Structures are given as C-alpha cells and as structure tokens.
C-alpha cells in the first residue's frame, strides 16, 4: 500500500518544480521558498478549519508538536544552507551533492530507530542517490 502513496508523492513532487521553474523567471529563489511555505501554511490552516481538525491539533501532546516543529525547522535550515551553498559554489556541484540526504536519513534510521538494514537496501539507496545526482 505504501508504494501507491510513494508513487503519488513522486508524481506530484515531480510536477511541482515545473511550475517553480516558470515562477523563478522573475522571482528571487529564497523569496519563492517563502511564498511557497506561506501558501502551504495557509492551505493547511484552511484544511484544519474545514475538516474540524483544530480541536485535534489543540489536544496534541506538546512533545509531538515540538517534534514536528523541529522537523519543519530542520527542513527550513536545510534550505538556508542549500541557498548559501548555491551562492558560494556552482549549481552543478551543489545540487547533486545535496541530493545525498536520503543516504543520511537511512543511516540515522538504521542507527537510532533500529530500522532493518540489508546490503540490498544499501545498494538500492546508493543507486537512487547516484541517479538523482546525475539527473540534476
């Protein structure tokens, strides 16, 4: 079942940069990220109100909220350093190198979350990271 969700994610995230590319012809990339995030935040606020999830959100354990906020902040910090790297070096070097982050996620998941590890999985991740680095 998770492969259907993964497939839908890949297709939607694959379509999204096409519109980014069209928008970036006249907009600074950092501000584009800001507009994208503010739009997403507003849409999810509307979603929470329409589907009556606000009460559920209010009752969430503080620990869970803080973990999501940390994850969100890490993503944003990642964007900050990504743009700093892009301004300091060539995109042809920075973009493929930054694509290695799933390898780091997998290593942390193996080490700290005790997720299963196999040589097949490691080879798969290396293939994907190398492929994504090449395509970018």
């Amino acid at each position, binding site marked *: 079942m998770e492969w259907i969700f993964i497939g839908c994610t890949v297709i939607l995230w694959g379509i999204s940069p096409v519109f980014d590319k069209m928008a970036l012809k006249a907009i600074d990339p950092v501000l584009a990220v800001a507009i994208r995030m503010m739009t997403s935040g507003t849409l999810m606020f509307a979603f929470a109100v329409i589907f009556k999830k606000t009460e559920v959100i209010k009752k969430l354990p503080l620990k869970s909220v803080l973990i999501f906020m940390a994850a969100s902040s890490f993503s944003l910090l990642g964007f900050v350093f990504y743009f700093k790297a892009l301004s300091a070096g060539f995109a042809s070097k920075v973009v493929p190198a930054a694509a290695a982050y799933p390898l780091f996620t997998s290593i*942390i998941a193996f080490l700290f979350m005790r997720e299963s590890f196999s040589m097949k999985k490691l080879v798969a991740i290396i293939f994907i990271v190398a492929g994504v680095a090449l395509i970018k």
Partner: protein
Amino acid sequence: MEWIYIGLTIFFWGLAPVFDKIALKTVDSSVGLAVRMMWSGVAMAVFVLATGKTETVINFPFKNISFLFISASVSLLGYMFYFRALSKANASKVVPAVATFPLITAVIAFCIMGEPFSVQKLSAVILIVSGIFLLH
C-alpha cells in the same frame, strides 16, 4: 566553503524525516502535516517581515505568484501522500524512494518543455529505476 554548507544541508534535510517519522507514530498524518506546514508558513512570514522583503513580495508579478501557488498546492498534495507513506513504512525506504521525483521532472521537462535528454540523464534513469526495483 560551499562544502560546509552542502554538509549542513544534507545534515538538516536528512534529519527532518527522522523527526517526522518519530512524531507520526502517535499522530494522524494529515494533522501532523498541518502542524508542520503552519509552522513553516509562520517561520517564513517572520523571515519576510524581519528582512524587510514584504514590499518586494507584494509587488511580484501576479502570473509568477500564481505559478508558485500552483506549485505549493501540488507539492502539498504530494506531502499528504508522503506523510501517509512515512506513517506506514520505514523512513529508510520511503525517503530514498520519494527522492526519485527529479526523474518525473526530467521526463516532463523533456516531453513538454523540450529540454534536452542526454546519455548522462539516461544513465541516471537506469540507476534510479534499478534502485527502486531493489528497494521494492
């Protein structure tokens, strides 16, 4: 200097899904996504205000802003599926699998926007597809 920034990008982008996965063990994926995105939206609104870029954002061409709205909405839908997948499967499987989305972008760019297709991109496609096959 750019390698420090690249390293920090990989670190933060790699760490974020691990925190998402931890929080998703006890929180519904759509509620979690709402919390995460609202926090990102607020953080980026503060960034825009603090850096005095509000006027710049307001004066962006409507057409470009519209493309960013579409991109954010499509990406958000992708996030909904991503969080569903992350709540059901291991982060070390989901994160590398969804990281293949540039392949879809490259195919769209090639088919619709007429961007060139090279041997390097073909090698990338073969590597990504092999990786996904192994991960499945």
